[in-house]
Protein backbone atom coordinates (compact mmCIF):
# COMPACT_ATOMS: atom_id res chain seq x y z
CA UNK A 1 0.00 0.00 0.00
CA UNK A 2 1.27 3.42 -0.90
CA UNK A 3 1.36 5.47 2.27
CA UNK A 4 2.68 8.58 0.63
CA UNK A 5 5.55 8.55 3.09
CA UNK A 6 7.93 8.66 0.15
CA UNK A 7 6.44 11.84 -1.31
CA UNK A 8 8.93 14.60 -1.94
CA UNK A 9 7.78 17.77 -0.20
CA UNK A 10 8.82 21.32 -0.90
CA UNK A 11 9.36 23.70 1.99
CA UNK A 12 6.03 25.40 2.66
CA UNK A 13 7.30 28.98 2.35
CA UNK A 14 9.16 28.20 -0.86
CA UNK A 15 6.04 26.50 -2.28
CA UNK A 16 4.05 29.64 -1.54
CA UNK A 17 6.68 31.85 -3.16
CA UNK A 18 6.43 29.96 -6.42
CA UNK A 19 2.79 28.90 -6.54
CA UNK A 20 -0.61 30.22 -5.63
CA UNK A 21 -2.85 27.70 -3.83
CA UNK A 22 -6.54 27.52 -4.70
CA UNK A 23 -8.81 25.71 -2.26
CA UNK A 24 -12.27 24.19 -2.34
CA UNK A 25 -14.21 22.17 0.20
CA UNK A 26 -17.01 19.68 0.27
CA UNK A 27 -18.34 19.21 3.76
CA UNK A 28 -20.91 16.51 4.50
CA UNK A 29 -23.14 17.10 7.50
CA UNK A 30 -25.19 14.26 8.98
CA UNK A 31 -28.50 15.67 10.18
CA UNK A 32 -29.76 14.56 13.59
CA UNK A 33 -33.43 14.05 12.65
CA UNK A 34 -35.19 11.18 14.42
CA UNK A 35 -35.52 9.17 11.21
CA UNK A 36 -33.63 8.71 7.98
CA UNK A 37 -33.86 10.83 4.82
CA UNK A 38 -36.28 8.59 2.94
CA UNK A 39 -37.36 5.93 5.43
CA UNK A 40 -38.84 5.86 8.95
CA UNK A 41 -35.90 3.84 10.31
CA UNK A 42 -34.23 5.41 13.38
CA UNK A 43 -31.35 7.66 12.38
CA UNK A 44 -28.03 6.55 13.92
CA UNK A 45 -26.82 10.17 13.69
CA UNK A 46 -29.58 11.27 16.09
CA UNK A 47 -28.62 11.65 19.75
CA UNK A 48 -28.91 8.49 21.82
CA UNK A 49 -29.53 6.04 18.99
CA UNK A 50 -27.51 2.86 19.42
CA UNK A 51 -26.13 1.65 16.11
CA UNK A 52 -23.68 -0.87 17.55
CA UNK A 53 -25.65 -3.86 16.25
CA UNK A 54 -25.02 -3.97 12.48
CA UNK A 55 -28.04 -3.91 10.16
CA UNK A 56 -30.43 -3.25 13.04
CA UNK A 57 -31.62 0.22 11.87
CA UNK A 58 -32.65 -0.72 8.37
CA UNK A 59 -36.01 -0.36 6.60
CA UNK A 60 -36.70 -1.87 3.15
CA UNK A 61 -36.12 1.56 1.54
CA UNK A 62 -32.60 1.76 2.97
CA UNK A 63 -31.71 -1.52 1.30
CA UNK A 64 -33.39 -0.66 -1.98
CA UNK A 65 -35.63 -3.73 -1.80
CA UNK A 66 -37.91 -4.13 -4.81
CA UNK A 67 -41.15 -2.20 -4.40
CA UNK A 68 -39.91 -0.09 -1.50
CA UNK A 69 -40.56 3.59 -2.18
CA UNK A 70 -38.71 6.52 -0.58
CA UNK A 71 -40.64 9.39 1.03
CA UNK A 72 -38.85 12.61 1.96
CA UNK A 73 -38.46 13.44 5.66
CA UNK A 74 -40.13 16.84 6.21
CA UNK A 75 -37.87 17.65 9.17
CA UNK A 76 -34.74 16.97 7.10
CA UNK A 77 -36.02 19.49 4.53
CA UNK A 78 -36.55 22.07 7.28
CA UNK A 79 -33.05 21.43 8.67
CA UNK A 80 -31.57 21.76 5.18
CA UNK A 81 -33.34 25.05 4.54
CA UNK A 82 -32.19 26.40 7.92
CA UNK A 83 -28.63 25.42 7.10
CA UNK A 84 -28.90 27.00 3.66
CA UNK A 85 -30.14 30.24 5.21
CA UNK A 86 -27.38 30.21 7.83
CA UNK A 87 -24.88 29.90 4.95
CA UNK A 88 -26.39 33.01 3.41
CA UNK A 89 -27.78 31.00 0.49
CA UNK A 90 -30.86 31.49 -1.61
CA UNK A 91 -33.44 28.74 -1.18
CA UNK A 92 -34.65 27.20 -4.43
CA UNK A 93 -38.38 27.61 -5.08
CA UNK A 94 -38.24 24.20 -6.75
CA UNK A 95 -35.72 21.60 -5.78
CA UNK A 96 -35.45 18.09 -7.12
CA UNK A 97 -33.77 14.83 -6.19
CA UNK A 98 -31.60 12.94 -8.65
CA UNK A 99 -30.05 9.52 -8.88
CA UNK A 100 -26.28 9.32 -8.78
CA UNK A 101 -25.37 5.97 -10.29
CA UNK A 102 -22.27 4.06 -9.25
CA UNK A 103 -21.19 0.55 -8.45
CA UNK A 104 -20.11 0.09 -4.90
CA UNK A 105 -21.76 -2.05 -2.23
CA UNK A 106 -22.12 0.77 0.32
CA UNK A 107 -25.62 1.33 -1.06
CA UNK A 108 -27.91 -1.52 -1.96
CA UNK A 109 -29.60 0.28 -4.86
CA UNK A 110 -26.51 0.90 -7.03
CA UNK A 111 -27.34 4.59 -6.84
CA UNK A 112 -27.42 7.29 -4.24
CA UNK A 113 -30.36 9.66 -4.04
CA UNK A 114 -28.82 13.10 -4.15
CA UNK A 115 -29.51 16.43 -5.82
CA UNK A 116 -27.88 17.52 -9.04
CA UNK A 117 -28.82 20.65 -10.95
CA UNK A 118 -31.60 21.77 -8.62
CA UNK A 119 -30.15 21.83 -5.07
CA UNK A 120 -32.21 23.14 -2.17
CA UNK A 121 -29.78 26.01 -1.47
CA UNK A 122 -27.27 27.92 -3.61
CA UNK A 123 -25.02 31.00 -3.72
CA UNK A 124 -24.03 32.02 -0.22
CA UNK A 125 -21.10 33.21 1.87
CA UNK A 126 -19.67 32.22 5.22
CA UNK A 127 -17.67 34.56 7.42
CA UNK A 128 -14.77 32.70 8.94
CA UNK A 129 -12.80 34.10 11.87
CA UNK A 130 -9.07 33.35 11.78
CA UNK A 131 -6.80 32.92 14.77
CA UNK A 132 -5.81 36.58 14.94
CA UNK A 133 -9.41 37.72 14.66
CA UNK A 134 -9.33 38.52 10.93
CA UNK A 135 -12.58 37.76 9.09
CA UNK A 136 -12.32 35.74 5.88
CA UNK A 137 -15.25 35.30 3.50
CA UNK A 138 -15.70 31.84 1.96
CA UNK A 139 -18.02 31.75 -1.07
CA UNK A 140 -20.57 28.92 -1.06
CA UNK A 141 -21.72 27.42 -4.34
CA UNK A 142 -24.47 25.16 -3.09
CA UNK A 143 -25.84 22.98 -0.31
CA UNK A 144 -27.79 19.93 -1.35
CA UNK A 145 -29.67 17.09 0.33
CA UNK A 146 -28.72 13.45 -0.08
CA UNK A 147 -28.52 10.15 1.75
CA UNK A 148 -25.49 8.68 3.48
CA UNK A 149 -24.11 5.29 2.45
CA UNK A 150 -23.53 2.16 4.50
CA UNK A 151 -20.32 1.27 6.25
CA UNK A 152 -17.81 -1.17 4.76
CA UNK A 153 -15.24 -3.11 6.70
CA UNK A 154 -12.47 -4.57 4.58
CA UNK A 155 -11.30 -7.91 5.90
CA UNK A 156 -8.09 -9.79 5.20
CA UNK A 157 -5.85 -6.91 4.17
CA UNK A 158 -2.98 -6.07 6.46
CA UNK A 159 -4.23 -2.56 7.16
CA UNK A 160 -8.03 -2.86 7.11
CA UNK A 161 -7.96 -0.99 3.83
CA UNK A 162 -9.44 -1.93 0.54
CA UNK A 163 -6.17 -2.95 -1.13
CA UNK A 164 -5.30 -6.55 -0.46
CA UNK A 165 -8.58 -7.25 1.31
CA UNK A 166 -10.01 -10.73 0.93
CA UNK A 167 -13.64 -9.66 1.30
CA UNK A 168 -15.70 -6.83 2.74
CA UNK A 169 -18.55 -6.71 5.26
CA UNK A 170 -21.44 -4.29 4.80
CA UNK A 171 -23.54 -2.68 7.52
CA UNK A 172 -26.47 -0.62 6.19
CA UNK A 173 -27.29 1.15 9.47
CA UNK A 174 -25.83 4.38 8.10
CA UNK A 175 -27.44 3.96 4.67
CA UNK A 176 -30.10 6.62 4.29
CA UNK A 177 -28.91 8.95 7.07
CA UNK A 178 -29.91 12.48 5.98
CA UNK A 179 -26.93 14.45 4.70
CA UNK A 180 -26.38 17.98 3.51
CA UNK A 181 -23.33 18.45 1.32
CA UNK A 182 -21.95 21.98 1.36
CA UNK A 183 -19.79 22.86 -1.63
CA UNK A 184 -17.66 26.00 -1.75
CA UNK A 185 -16.63 27.93 -4.82
CA UNK A 186 -12.89 28.08 -5.48
CA UNK A 187 -11.20 30.02 -2.69
CA UNK A 188 -8.55 32.40 -4.02
CA UNK A 189 -6.01 34.52 -2.21
CA UNK A 190 -5.61 32.31 0.84
CA UNK A 191 -1.83 32.21 0.30
CA UNK A 192 0.18 31.15 3.38
CA UNK A 193 -2.99 31.13 5.44
CA UNK A 194 -4.50 28.34 3.31
CA UNK A 195 -4.13 25.62 6.00
CA UNK A 196 -5.46 27.96 8.67
CA UNK A 197 -8.42 29.03 6.53
CA UNK A 198 -9.21 25.39 5.81
CA UNK A 199 -9.35 24.58 9.50
CA UNK A 200 -11.29 27.71 10.39
CA UNK A 201 -13.84 27.09 7.62
CA UNK A 202 -14.62 23.56 8.79
CA UNK A 203 -14.74 24.76 12.42
CA UNK A 204 -17.21 27.46 11.39
CA UNK A 205 -19.46 24.97 9.60
CA UNK A 206 -19.31 22.82 12.72
CA UNK A 207 -20.26 25.79 14.91
CA UNK A 208 -23.10 26.76 12.57
CA UNK A 209 -24.71 23.31 12.48
CA UNK A 210 -24.31 23.00 16.24
CA UNK A 211 -25.92 26.35 16.88
CA UNK A 212 -28.78 25.37 14.57
CA UNK A 213 -29.15 22.12 16.52
CA UNK A 214 -29.38 20.12 13.30
CA UNK A 215 -26.38 17.80 13.74
CA UNK A 216 -24.34 16.26 16.51
CA UNK A 217 -21.38 17.57 14.47
CA UNK A 218 -18.84 15.19 15.97
CA UNK A 219 -16.07 14.86 13.41
CA UNK A 220 -14.56 11.81 15.11
CA UNK A 221 -17.91 10.06 14.67
CA UNK A 222 -18.28 11.06 11.06
CA UNK A 223 -21.19 13.45 11.65
CA UNK A 224 -19.13 16.07 9.83
CA UNK A 225 -16.77 15.01 7.07
CA UNK A 226 -14.53 17.14 4.93
CA UNK A 227 -13.07 16.59 1.48
CA UNK A 228 -10.40 19.18 0.73
CA UNK A 229 -9.61 20.24 -2.83
CA UNK A 230 -6.22 21.77 -3.44
CA UNK A 231 -4.60 22.99 -6.64
CA UNK A 232 -1.58 25.14 -7.35
CA UNK A 233 -0.85 27.48 -10.20
CA UNK A 234 2.42 29.17 -10.98
CA UNK A 235 2.51 32.85 -10.04
CA UNK A 236 1.07 34.93 -12.83
CA UNK A 237 -0.82 32.09 -14.50
CA UNK A 238 -4.53 32.66 -15.03
CA UNK A 239 -5.58 29.04 -15.70
CA UNK A 240 -6.26 26.92 -12.62
CA UNK A 241 -3.93 24.03 -11.92
CA UNK A 242 -5.07 20.41 -11.71
CA UNK A 243 -6.66 19.71 -8.35
CA UNK A 244 -6.63 16.76 -6.02
CA UNK A 245 -9.42 15.90 -3.60
CA UNK A 246 -8.24 14.67 -0.22
CA UNK A 247 -10.78 12.53 1.60
CA UNK A 248 -10.98 11.05 5.07
CA UNK A 249 -9.94 14.29 6.75
CA UNK A 250 -11.80 13.82 10.00
CA UNK A 251 -10.51 16.29 12.53
CA UNK A 252 -9.89 20.02 12.44
CA UNK A 253 -6.20 19.41 12.93
CA UNK A 254 -6.15 17.00 9.98
CA UNK A 255 -7.85 19.51 7.71
CA UNK A 256 -5.07 21.97 8.39
CA UNK A 257 -2.32 19.39 8.00
CA UNK A 258 -3.78 17.79 4.86
CA UNK A 259 -3.99 21.12 3.03
CA UNK A 260 -0.44 21.98 4.02
CA UNK A 261 0.75 18.56 2.90
CA UNK A 262 -0.95 18.75 -0.51
CA UNK A 263 0.52 22.21 -1.16
CA UNK A 264 4.01 20.95 -0.35
CA UNK A 265 3.61 17.72 -2.32
CA UNK A 266 2.15 19.33 -5.43
CA UNK A 267 4.73 22.12 -5.39
CA UNK A 268 7.57 19.60 -5.38
CA UNK A 269 6.07 17.72 -8.35
CA UNK A 270 5.40 20.88 -10.37
CA UNK A 271 8.81 22.36 -9.63
CA UNK A 272 10.45 19.17 -10.86
CA UNK A 273 8.58 19.53 -14.16
CA UNK A 274 5.97 16.89 -13.33
CA UNK A 275 2.21 17.06 -13.65
CA UNK A 276 -0.48 16.66 -11.02
CA UNK A 277 -2.83 13.75 -11.58
CA UNK A 278 -6.47 14.62 -10.99
CA UNK A 279 -7.37 12.06 -8.36
CA UNK A 280 -8.72 11.49 -4.89
CA UNK A 281 -6.10 11.29 -2.15
CA UNK A 282 -6.57 9.58 1.17
CA UNK A 283 -5.42 11.32 4.31
CA UNK A 284 -3.55 9.16 6.82
CA UNK A 285 -3.68 10.58 10.31
CA UNK A 286 -0.87 8.34 11.58
CA UNK A 287 1.75 9.26 8.97
CA UNK A 288 0.44 12.79 8.37
CA UNK A 289 0.47 12.20 4.63
CA UNK A 290 -1.84 11.51 1.69
CA UNK A 291 -1.80 8.59 -0.72
CA UNK A 292 -3.23 8.23 -4.20
CA UNK A 293 -6.79 7.00 -4.55
CA UNK A 294 -8.78 6.49 -7.67
CA UNK A 295 -8.16 8.69 -10.70
CA UNK A 296 -10.98 11.01 -11.67
CA UNK A 297 -12.19 9.96 -15.07
CA UNK A 298 -14.99 7.65 -16.14
CA UNK A 299 -15.79 7.03 -12.52
CA UNK A 300 -17.11 10.58 -12.29
CA UNK A 301 -19.70 9.93 -14.98
CA UNK A 302 -22.53 9.25 -12.58
CA UNK A 303 -25.35 9.45 -15.16
CA UNK A 304 -27.45 11.67 -12.94
CA UNK A 305 -31.11 11.78 -13.80
CA UNK A 306 -34.21 13.02 -11.95
CA UNK A 307 -35.30 10.53 -9.26
CA UNK A 308 -38.61 9.17 -10.60
CA UNK A 309 -39.68 7.88 -7.18
CA UNK A 310 -39.72 11.33 -5.62
CA UNK A 311 -41.56 14.57 -6.29
CA UNK A 312 -40.07 18.05 -6.30
CA UNK A 313 -39.71 19.91 -3.02
CA UNK A 314 -41.18 23.41 -3.25
CA UNK A 315 -40.79 25.18 0.08
CA UNK A 316 -43.32 27.97 0.56
CA UNK A 317 -42.11 31.50 1.19
CA UNK A 318 -43.94 31.33 4.52
CA UNK A 319 -41.88 28.31 5.58
CA UNK A 320 -38.62 29.91 4.47
CA UNK A 321 -39.41 33.11 6.36
CA UNK A 322 -40.48 31.15 9.44
CA UNK A 323 -37.14 29.31 9.43
CA UNK A 324 -35.19 32.50 8.74
CA UNK A 325 -36.84 34.20 11.72
CA UNK A 326 -35.91 31.25 13.93
CA UNK A 327 -32.21 31.29 12.99
CA UNK A 328 -29.94 31.56 16.02
CA UNK A 329 -27.32 34.28 16.12
CA UNK A 330 -24.31 33.57 13.92
CA UNK A 331 -21.31 31.90 15.54
CA UNK A 332 -19.41 35.19 15.24
CA UNK A 333 -22.15 37.11 17.08
CA UNK A 334 -22.44 34.28 19.58
CA UNK A 335 -18.70 34.53 20.30
CA UNK A 336 -18.85 38.29 20.79
CA UNK A 337 -21.79 37.92 23.19
CA UNK A 338 -20.15 35.15 25.20
CA UNK A 339 -16.91 37.05 25.57
CA UNK A 340 -18.83 40.02 26.95
CA UNK A 341 -21.02 37.87 29.22
CA UNK A 342 -18.10 35.93 30.64
CA UNK A 343 -15.86 38.94 31.00
CA UNK A 344 -12.85 37.31 29.35
CA UNK A 345 -10.07 39.42 27.88
CA UNK A 346 -9.32 39.13 24.14
CA UNK A 347 -6.30 36.97 24.90
CA UNK A 348 -8.19 34.68 27.24
CA UNK A 349 -10.97 34.30 24.73
CA UNK A 350 -8.58 33.68 21.83
CA UNK A 351 -7.05 30.76 23.78
CA UNK A 352 -10.49 29.21 24.12
CA UNK A 353 -11.19 29.57 20.40
CA UNK A 354 -7.82 28.20 19.41
CA UNK A 355 -8.29 25.17 21.63
CA UNK A 356 -11.69 24.66 19.95
CA UNK A 357 -13.57 24.34 23.23
CA UNK A 358 -15.97 27.28 23.10
CA UNK A 359 -19.08 25.14 22.60
CA UNK A 360 -18.00 22.82 25.41
CA UNK A 361 -17.23 25.76 27.67
CA UNK A 362 -20.58 27.38 26.96
CA UNK A 363 -22.43 24.17 27.72
CA UNK A 364 -20.45 23.70 30.94
CA UNK A 365 -21.44 27.19 32.05
CA UNK A 366 -25.08 26.57 31.08
CA UNK A 367 -24.99 23.54 33.39
CA UNK A 368 -24.14 25.81 36.28
CA UNK A 369 -20.34 26.25 36.37
CA UNK A 370 -18.66 29.64 36.74
CA UNK A 371 -17.09 30.78 33.42
CA UNK A 372 -13.62 31.17 34.97
CA UNK A 373 -13.77 27.66 36.42
CA UNK A 374 -15.02 26.18 33.13
CA UNK A 375 -12.20 27.94 31.30
CA UNK A 376 -9.65 26.69 33.84
CA UNK A 377 -10.63 23.04 33.33
CA UNK A 378 -11.10 23.04 29.56
CA UNK A 379 -7.85 24.91 28.91
CA UNK A 380 -5.97 23.20 31.73
CA UNK A 381 -6.21 19.56 32.65
CA UNK A 382 -8.60 18.50 29.86
CA UNK A 383 -6.58 20.19 27.12
CA UNK A 384 -3.38 18.69 28.56
CA UNK A 385 -4.79 15.15 28.36
CA UNK A 386 -6.22 15.85 24.88
CA UNK A 387 -2.85 17.07 23.58
CA UNK A 388 -1.12 14.09 25.10
CA UNK A 389 -3.45 11.76 23.20
CA UNK A 390 -3.71 13.85 20.04
CA UNK A 391 -7.53 14.14 20.21
CA UNK A 392 -10.02 17.00 20.46
CA UNK A 393 -10.75 17.98 24.10
CA UNK A 394 -14.50 17.65 23.54
CA UNK A 395 -14.15 13.94 22.86
CA UNK A 396 -12.71 13.19 26.29
CA UNK A 397 -15.41 14.30 28.68
CA UNK A 398 -18.90 15.81 28.51
CA UNK A 399 -19.64 19.40 29.60
CA UNK A 400 -22.17 18.00 32.08
CA UNK A 401 -19.46 15.97 33.79
CA UNK A 402 -17.08 18.93 33.85
CA UNK A 403 -19.75 21.08 35.50
CA UNK A 404 -20.32 18.30 38.03
CA UNK A 405 -16.61 18.15 38.74
CA UNK A 406 -16.48 21.90 39.24
CA UNK A 407 -19.46 21.76 41.61
CA UNK A 408 -17.68 19.09 43.66
CA UNK A 409 -14.60 21.30 44.05
CA UNK A 410 -16.65 24.42 44.81
CA UNK A 411 -18.57 22.80 47.66
CA UNK A 412 -15.33 21.45 49.10
CA UNK A 413 -15.94 17.78 48.39
CA UNK A 414 -12.83 17.64 46.21
CA UNK A 415 -9.50 19.42 46.38
CA UNK A 416 -7.92 20.44 43.09
CA UNK A 417 -5.59 17.49 43.26
CA UNK A 418 -8.42 15.04 43.92
CA UNK A 419 -10.51 16.63 41.18
CA UNK A 420 -7.73 16.04 38.66
CA UNK A 421 -7.61 12.41 39.77
CA UNK A 422 -11.39 12.11 39.37
CA UNK A 423 -11.16 13.66 35.90
CA UNK A 424 -8.64 11.02 34.80
CA UNK A 425 -11.05 8.32 35.95
CA UNK A 426 -14.02 9.95 34.23
CA UNK A 427 -11.97 10.15 31.02
CA UNK A 428 -11.08 6.48 31.50
CA UNK A 429 -14.79 5.74 31.37
CA UNK A 430 -15.47 4.96 35.02
CA UNK A 431 -18.64 7.04 35.05
CA UNK A 432 -19.69 10.52 36.10
CA UNK A 433 -17.60 12.45 38.67
CA UNK A 434 -20.24 11.72 41.35
CA UNK A 435 -20.09 8.02 40.54
CA UNK A 436 -16.29 7.97 40.57
CA UNK A 437 -16.16 9.78 43.92
CA UNK A 438 -18.66 7.30 45.37
CA UNK A 439 -17.05 4.19 43.91
CA UNK A 440 -13.49 5.17 44.79
CA UNK A 441 -14.20 6.90 48.08
CA UNK A 442 -12.32 9.98 46.89
CA UNK A 443 -14.21 12.63 48.82
CA UNK A 444 -12.30 15.14 50.93
CA UNK A 445 -12.40 14.26 54.62
CA UNK A 446 -14.28 17.28 55.87
CA UNK A 447 -15.29 15.70 59.13
CA UNK A 448 -13.26 17.70 61.69
CA UNK A 449 -13.38 14.94 64.28
CA UNK A 450 -11.63 12.53 61.90
CA UNK A 451 -9.02 15.21 61.16
CA UNK A 452 -8.54 16.08 64.83
CA UNK A 453 -7.96 12.43 65.72
CA UNK A 454 -5.27 12.19 63.05
CA UNK A 455 -3.73 15.51 64.13
CA UNK A 456 -3.60 14.54 67.78
CA UNK A 457 -1.93 11.29 66.84
CA UNK A 458 0.65 13.07 64.67
CA UNK A 459 1.38 15.66 67.37
CA UNK A 460 1.77 12.96 69.97
CA UNK A 461 4.28 11.09 67.80
CA UNK A 462 6.32 14.25 67.11
CA UNK A 463 6.65 15.96 70.54
CA UNK A 464 9.61 18.07 69.34
CA UNK A 465 7.47 19.60 66.63
CA UNK A 466 4.64 20.20 69.08
CA UNK A 467 7.07 22.09 71.32
CA UNK A 468 8.30 24.25 68.43
CA UNK A 469 4.75 25.21 67.48
CA UNK A 470 4.02 26.06 71.10
CA UNK A 471 7.14 28.25 71.04
CA UNK A 472 5.58 30.17 68.16
CA UNK A 473 7.52 28.55 65.28
CA UNK A 474 4.42 27.95 63.17
CA UNK A 475 6.37 26.92 60.09
CA UNK A 476 7.27 23.71 61.96
CA UNK A 477 3.61 22.70 61.57
CA UNK A 478 4.42 21.57 58.04
CA UNK A 479 5.76 18.23 59.24
CA UNK A 480 2.54 17.50 61.10
CA UNK A 481 0.33 18.66 58.21
CA UNK A 482 2.27 16.32 55.92
CA UNK A 483 1.74 13.39 58.26
CA UNK A 484 -1.99 14.13 58.55
CA UNK A 485 -2.44 14.51 54.77
CA UNK A 486 -0.66 11.19 54.36
CA UNK A 487 -2.93 9.54 56.93
CA UNK A 488 -5.93 10.97 55.03
CA UNK A 489 -4.51 9.62 51.75
CA UNK A 490 -4.46 13.18 50.46
CA UNK A 491 -8.21 13.54 50.80
CA UNK A 492 -8.23 16.50 53.13
CA UNK A 493 -8.18 20.23 52.66
CA UNK A 494 -4.62 21.21 53.63
CA UNK A 495 -5.63 24.74 54.70
CA UNK A 496 -8.19 23.37 57.14
CA UNK A 497 -5.68 20.83 58.45
CA UNK A 498 -3.21 23.64 59.12
CA UNK A 499 -5.81 25.65 61.03
CA UNK A 500 -6.68 22.64 63.16
CA UNK A 501 -3.02 21.74 63.80
CA UNK A 502 -2.31 25.21 65.18
CA UNK A 503 -5.47 25.06 67.24
CA UNK A 504 -4.69 21.61 68.69
CA UNK A 505 -1.05 22.48 69.42
CA UNK A 506 -2.19 25.30 71.69
CA UNK A 507 -4.85 23.15 73.34
Amino acid at each position, binding site marked *: MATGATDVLMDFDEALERFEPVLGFEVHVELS*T*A*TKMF*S*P*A*PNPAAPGVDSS*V*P*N*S*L*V*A*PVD*MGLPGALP*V*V*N*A*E*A*VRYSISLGLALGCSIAP*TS*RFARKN*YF*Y*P*DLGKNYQISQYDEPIAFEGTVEVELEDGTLWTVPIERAHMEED*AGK*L*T*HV*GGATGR*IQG*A*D*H*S*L*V*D*YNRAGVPLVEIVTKPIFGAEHRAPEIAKAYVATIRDIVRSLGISEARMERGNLRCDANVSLRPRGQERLGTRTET*KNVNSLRSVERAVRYEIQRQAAILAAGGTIVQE*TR*HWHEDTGSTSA*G*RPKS*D*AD*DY*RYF*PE*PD*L*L*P*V*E*PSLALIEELRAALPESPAAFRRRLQADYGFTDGEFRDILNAGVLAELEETVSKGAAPAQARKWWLGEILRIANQRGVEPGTLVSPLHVSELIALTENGDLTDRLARQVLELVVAGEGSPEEVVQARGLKVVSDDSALIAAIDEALASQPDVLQKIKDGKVQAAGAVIGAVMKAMRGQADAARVRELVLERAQA
Partner: protein
Amino acid sequence: MPDATPVISVADVQHLAGLARIALEPAEIEHLAGELNQIVDSVKKVQEVATPDVPATSHPIPLVNVLRADVVGEVLTQQQVLSGAPDAADGRFRVPAILGEEQ
Protein backbone atom coordinates in the same frame (compact mmCIF):
# COMPACT_ATOMS: atom_id res chain seq x y z
CA MET B 1 -38.69 15.49 -38.51
CA PRO B 2 -36.30 12.59 -37.76
CA ASP B 3 -32.67 13.56 -38.08
CA ALA B 4 -30.45 11.68 -40.50
CA THR B 5 -27.30 11.57 -38.33
CA PRO B 6 -27.65 9.13 -35.44
CA VAL B 7 -27.82 10.78 -32.02
CA ILE B 8 -26.38 7.77 -30.22
CA SER B 9 -23.03 6.67 -31.58
CA VAL B 10 -21.39 3.29 -31.21
CA ALA B 11 -18.85 4.95 -28.91
CA ASP B 12 -21.70 6.25 -26.71
CA VAL B 13 -23.10 2.75 -26.30
CA GLN B 14 -19.67 1.38 -25.53
CA HIS B 15 -19.13 4.06 -22.91
CA LEU B 16 -22.54 3.52 -21.28
CA ALA B 17 -22.05 -0.25 -21.27
CA GLY B 18 -18.77 0.29 -19.46
CA LEU B 19 -20.41 2.56 -16.88
CA ALA B 20 -23.21 0.05 -16.39
CA ARG B 21 -20.73 -2.84 -16.14
CA ILE B 22 -22.39 -4.69 -19.01
CA ALA B 23 -20.12 -6.73 -21.30
CA LEU B 24 -21.25 -6.39 -24.92
CA GLU B 25 -19.98 -7.93 -28.15
CA PRO B 26 -19.25 -5.48 -30.99
CA ALA B 27 -22.28 -6.81 -32.91
CA GLU B 28 -24.51 -6.20 -29.90
CA ILE B 29 -23.22 -2.65 -29.58
CA GLU B 30 -24.03 -1.96 -33.25
CA HIS B 31 -27.45 -3.46 -32.81
CA LEU B 32 -28.20 -1.49 -29.63
CA ALA B 33 -26.99 1.77 -31.14
CA GLY B 34 -29.49 1.27 -33.93
CA GLU B 35 -32.34 0.48 -31.56
CA LEU B 36 -31.53 3.37 -29.25
CA ASN B 37 -31.57 5.77 -32.20
CA GLN B 38 -35.02 4.51 -33.14
CA ILE B 39 -36.16 5.20 -29.57
CA VAL B 40 -34.66 8.68 -29.66
CA ASP B 41 -36.43 9.33 -32.97
CA SER B 42 -39.74 8.26 -31.49
CA VAL B 43 -39.30 10.42 -28.43
CA LYS B 44 -38.32 13.34 -30.67
CA LYS B 45 -41.92 13.53 -31.85
CA VAL B 46 -42.71 15.09 -28.48
CA GLN B 47 -40.56 18.05 -29.48
CA GLU B 48 -42.94 18.78 -32.31
CA VAL B 49 -45.77 19.48 -29.90
CA ALA B 50 -43.81 20.76 -26.91
CA THR B 51 -43.54 24.51 -27.34
CA PRO B 52 -41.08 26.54 -25.22
CA ASP B 53 -43.87 27.59 -22.86
CA VAL B 54 -44.37 23.97 -21.75
CA PRO B 55 -42.14 23.52 -18.69
CA ALA B 56 -39.81 20.55 -18.43
CA THR B 57 -41.24 17.82 -16.28
CA SER B 58 -39.64 14.91 -14.50
CA HIS B 59 -42.88 13.42 -13.29
CA PRO B 60 -46.24 12.76 -14.97
CA ILE B 61 -48.31 13.75 -11.94
CA PRO B 62 -48.24 17.43 -10.95
CA LEU B 63 -47.65 16.88 -7.26
CA VAL B 64 -45.03 18.53 -5.04
CA ASN B 65 -44.02 18.36 -1.37
CA VAL B 66 -45.07 14.82 -0.66
CA LEU B 67 -43.35 14.64 2.68
CA ARG B 68 -43.33 12.38 5.70
CA ALA B 69 -43.40 13.39 9.38
CA ASP B 70 -40.15 12.64 11.21
CA VAL B 71 -41.62 9.78 13.25
CA VAL B 72 -39.83 6.49 13.80
CA GLY B 73 -41.52 3.51 12.21
CA GLU B 74 -40.78 -0.15 11.76
CA VAL B 75 -37.42 -1.58 10.85
CA LEU B 76 -36.43 -5.01 9.70
CA THR B 77 -34.69 -7.38 12.07
CA GLN B 78 -31.05 -8.13 11.32
CA GLN B 79 -32.15 -11.63 10.35
CA GLN B 80 -34.71 -10.25 7.88
CA VAL B 81 -32.14 -7.82 6.46
CA LEU B 82 -29.70 -10.64 5.79
CA SER B 83 -32.28 -13.22 4.68
CA GLY B 84 -31.70 -12.54 1.00
CA ALA B 85 -27.94 -12.19 1.22
CA PRO B 86 -25.87 -14.75 -0.70
CA ASP B 87 -23.35 -14.61 2.13
CA ALA B 88 -23.20 -12.96 5.55
CA ALA B 89 -20.83 -12.76 8.49
CA ASP B 90 -20.94 -10.97 11.86
CA GLY B 91 -24.43 -9.65 11.17
CA ARG B 92 -23.29 -8.03 7.96
CA PHE B 93 -23.39 -8.71 4.22
CA ARG B 94 -20.27 -10.42 3.05
CA VAL B 95 -19.23 -9.22 -0.40
CA PRO B 96 -16.31 -10.25 -2.59
CA ALA B 97 -13.12 -8.21 -2.51
CA ILE B 98 -13.78 -4.85 -4.10
CA LEU B 99 -11.55 -4.01 -7.02
CA GLY B 100 -10.84 -0.36 -7.43
CA GLU B 101 -11.21 2.35 -4.87
CA GLU B 102 -13.51 3.64 -2.20
CA GLN B 103 -16.14 6.05 -3.42
